[in-house]
């Protein structure tokens, strides 16, 4: 420490004239407004900027100049032997020069601000820095920046003064590290790993700074009076440290990407309508993580998708598709996975989209895919990688939902987006895009509705439409939109949620402040029965676990209980507490007939807080499928 302080003091004393030069130059900013011929507030502003820029340029210039000229020439000319012939450690020699340079640079910068500051100038932080935290940290950032700048210039100076052919190796190493870092970073794209990517960048920057400082020390400690030895030591430490940092970052990226569903910190699961697969989404190891997950076997496949747009699974549960995730630019390829083949790996379909689709729906057997991209609806054949038909179906503010009526026909339910302050009558238009004839035609509509919440039966021939505003419920013909029956009159006092049973009957949950009930309708809309439910704050219709046996979740506050409702006999049996169905008859989806198939695995999956469980409704037995990691 004594040696370090002595060297620092000596170097400052030797270069004290720099401070005098800074003091003289500090009056320049006062003259700038006169040269520009401005006065008043503009003059003050000009003075501020001139003082700041001069101060910054002086500090940076000093750090650069000192880094290049303080130590490397002394090593090359062996003048540094003066220090090595004394009881000074290499650290004291290196750090003494380094700190002296930084002190001189920052003192000079401060001196340059004094006259302008006295004249009322202020550092234009607001124009320079966005982050409000930075002004508090700026002294540290400035010092760190000057330290690294000094070390970087010292490194360059040693490399070039050594006149060694190994400088070419330095260039190769720098390129390799650059490319390596770029490659590692590309593994952590912003769309799914913004946090880890930022962390990786910061770690690399800090590592580079530390590597430069360590390499400078090594050049002095191992090189001493031999510039070639100094170069060797510097290069070894610099590139070695950066390679180690890169390896560490690579390991970190691998760790982030190796996250399993069990690593999710909280998640949302969407089971497929049939089969045992589903989509599990959440955050794992700091990155967004989307998984295709087989609840039966625990098999999973991590999917890189933008935002939370998880993969789409066909109604038969055998195929999943998704759009490849990428940070910038398109086109984006559609990827697919055959879920019924245990050995299948994600495959490229050779189908590309220019942008991210606002709607992406698979046909029931998963062979065809409908996408809506910038208002254009397209039907693609996945096996042949061909786009079979395309048509513009939507403008800027159009709400489009739909499903495959059959493998060739995609039915669109189109409605203008309802803006909150412009409520009123709108028309729901029903169109069909036919892949065989490549035509789009309107098949019907429904007028007199505000925004509608739509649920279709499995075949799509009938649709239940619920008005958002007053909860009026209609049964419509799925193709023509013709009103078949009004299932419930409008009332804003009642919460309603409809769904289709496997046999075509319709169930409608109703909840008011006083009571809750489940109304059962025949397939033609005629009311069949009413099943009283225990009073509840909210009612959610789960799946049909067996013919006529419906899971109903009744909520009071954040807590739900699950009951099994027999629509035939009107029985209501409470089977579990603290659960919420993972798949619902009336869950929100752009695909309006995506409710779980009767008796499917999806109907038996429930959230229990941060755990996904499988509940056997007949025995009440619970099995943990997936548990979120504790935060």
């Amino acid at each position: 420490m004594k040696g370090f302080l002595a060297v620092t003091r000596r170097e400052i004393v030797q270069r004290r004239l720099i401070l005098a030069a800074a003091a003289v130059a500090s009056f320049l900013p006062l003259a700038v407004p006169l040269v520009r011929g401005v006065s008043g507030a503009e003059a003050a502003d000009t003075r501020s900027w001139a003082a700041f820029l001069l101060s910054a340029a002086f500090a940076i210039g000093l750090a650069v100049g000192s880094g290049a000229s303080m130590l490397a020439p002394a090593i090359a000319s062996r003048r540094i032997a003066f220090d090595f012939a004394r009881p000074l450690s290499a650290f004291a020699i290196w750090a003494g020069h380094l700190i002296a340079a930084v002190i001189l640079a920052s003192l000079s910068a401060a001196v340059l601000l004094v006259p302008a500051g006295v004249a009322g100038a202020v550092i234009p932080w607001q124009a320079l820095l966005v982050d409000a935290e930075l002004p508090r940290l700026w002294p540290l950032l400035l010092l760190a920046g000057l330290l690294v700048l000094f070390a970087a210039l010292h490194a360059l100076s040693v490399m070039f003064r050594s006149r060694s052919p190994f400088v070419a190796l330095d260039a190769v190493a720098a390129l390799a590290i650059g490319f390596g870092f770029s490659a590692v970073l590309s593994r952590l794209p912003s769309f799914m790993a913004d946090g880890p990517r930022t962390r990786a960048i910061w770690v690399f920057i800090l590592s580079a700074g530390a590597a430069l400082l360590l390499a400078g020390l090594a050049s002095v400690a191992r090189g001493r009076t031999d510039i070639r030895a100094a170069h060797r030591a510097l290069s070894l430490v610099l590139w070695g440290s950066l390679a180690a940092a890169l390896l560490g970052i690579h390991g970190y990226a691998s760790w982030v990407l190796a996250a399993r569903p069990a690593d999710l910190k909280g998640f949302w699961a969407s089971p497929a309508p049939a089969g045992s697969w589903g989509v599990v989404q959440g955050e794992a190891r700091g990155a967004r993580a989307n998984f295709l997950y087989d609840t039966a076997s625990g098999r999973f496949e991590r999917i890189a998708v933008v935002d939370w747009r998880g993969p789409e699974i066909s109604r038969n549960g055998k195929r999943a598709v998704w759009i490849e995730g990428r940070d910038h630019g398109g086109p984006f390829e559609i990827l697919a996975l055959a879920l019924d083949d245990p050995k299948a790996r994600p495959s490229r379909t050779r189908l590309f989209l220019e942008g991210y689709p606002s709607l992406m729906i698979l046909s029931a057997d998963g062979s065809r895919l409908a996408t809506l991209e910038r208002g254009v609806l397209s039907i693609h054949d996945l096996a042949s990688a061909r786009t079979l038909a395309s048509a513009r179906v939507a403008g800027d503010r159009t709400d489009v939902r739909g499903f495959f009526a059959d493998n060739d026909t995609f039915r669109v339910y189109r409605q203008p987006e309802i803006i909150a302050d412009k409520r009123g009558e709108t028309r729901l238009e029903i169109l069909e895009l036919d892949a065989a004839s490549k035509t789009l035609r309107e098949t019907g509509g429904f007028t007199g509705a505000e925004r509608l919440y739509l649920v279709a039966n499995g075949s799509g021939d009938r649709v239940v439409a619920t008005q958002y505003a007053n909860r009026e419920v209609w049964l419509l013909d799925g193709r023509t939109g013709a009103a078949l029956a009004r299932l419930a009159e409008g009332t804003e006092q009642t919460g309603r949620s409809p769904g289709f049973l496997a046999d075509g009957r319709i169930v409608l949950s109703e909840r008011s402040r006083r009571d809750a009930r489940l109304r059962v309708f025949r397939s033609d809309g005629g009311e069949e029965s009413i099943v009283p439910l225990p009073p509840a704050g909210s009612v959610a219709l789960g799946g049909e676990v067996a013919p006529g046996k419906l899971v109903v979740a009744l909520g009071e506050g954040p807590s739900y209980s699950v009951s099994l409702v027999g629509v035939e006999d009107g029985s209501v049996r409470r089977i579990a507490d603290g659960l919420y169905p993972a798949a619902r008859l009336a869950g929100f989806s752009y695909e309006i007939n995506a409710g779980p198939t009767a008796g499917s695995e999806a109907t038996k999956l429930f959230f229990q807080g941060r755990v996904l469980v499988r509940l056997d409704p007949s025995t009440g037995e619970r099995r943990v499928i997936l548990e979120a990691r504790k935060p």
Partner: protein
Amino acid sequence: MTDPIRVEGLTVQYGRATACRDVTLSVAPGSVYALLGRNGAGKSSLIRCLLGEQRPTSGRALLFGEDSWRARRRAMERTGVVPEEPDAPAAMSARQLSDFCRSIYPRWDAAGVSARLQRFGVPPSTPFGSLSKGQKGEVMLSLALGHAPELLVLDDPTLGLDIVARRALFEEIVGELADRGTTVFLTTHDLAGFEGIATRVGILKEGRLVLDEETERLKSRFRRILYENQLTETRTAFGTELDAFDAVRVKVRGWGIDAVVSNFEEAAFARFREADGVENAQAEAMPLEEIFLAVAGEEKAKGDAK
């Protein structure tokens, strides 16, 4: 007591060039070791290794029993160094340099340094870079002695000094030796100047230590022998009569033979004088400079013969 300096099998290479080859020597406490050699013989490389400024390619240099590369800092607390090129920071005056040294040495005799500088007539406030070469050397010597070192290493300290500065330097070194028995290791071309001081001499030739001996012993075994040899002109080879003396240089002059021998003995010389064909033989003591020239110079006895 540990030798202040020990060098063991030291080799220094720069790429394919070898500066020192397998050099081994030691310097006893209180002695004055003069390392001689022509330019490029490897003296400076050896000194850099000795001072821990450069890592040897192989072998090691020990100061006070410790590897000087690893324990340089400790060793430098007990060592004073006067380099070949005065290397103190140019912007600092002698007084500032003394102040700097005071802050890093446990014991620093600032008054002694000041007095020494005064004796030398060096202005204490003049920047080092503005001093004459002789004054720079005097400042370096003053700084080297400021912490009363047990070992003083001087790398050609008289190089470029005028006669007055050389005299002053010798006086300081002799005074230092007389006062405290400091061990001195020096390289020099000024053989005459150090002849009376050096207790031991080493000669480096093309990186190899070809001679390492007590000065007195060295001077006693080297002689210049001059004689007339009546048979020389008729013989195809000469000097067989000098075999007993290990001639290192033989010159045939018009008047006879001029030889430098490295194994002179009075008894053998008495016999030599009586040898057949040898007339008017004389043996002259040699100064160190001539011994050095004979050993490290380019001439060789046999080469001359041819």
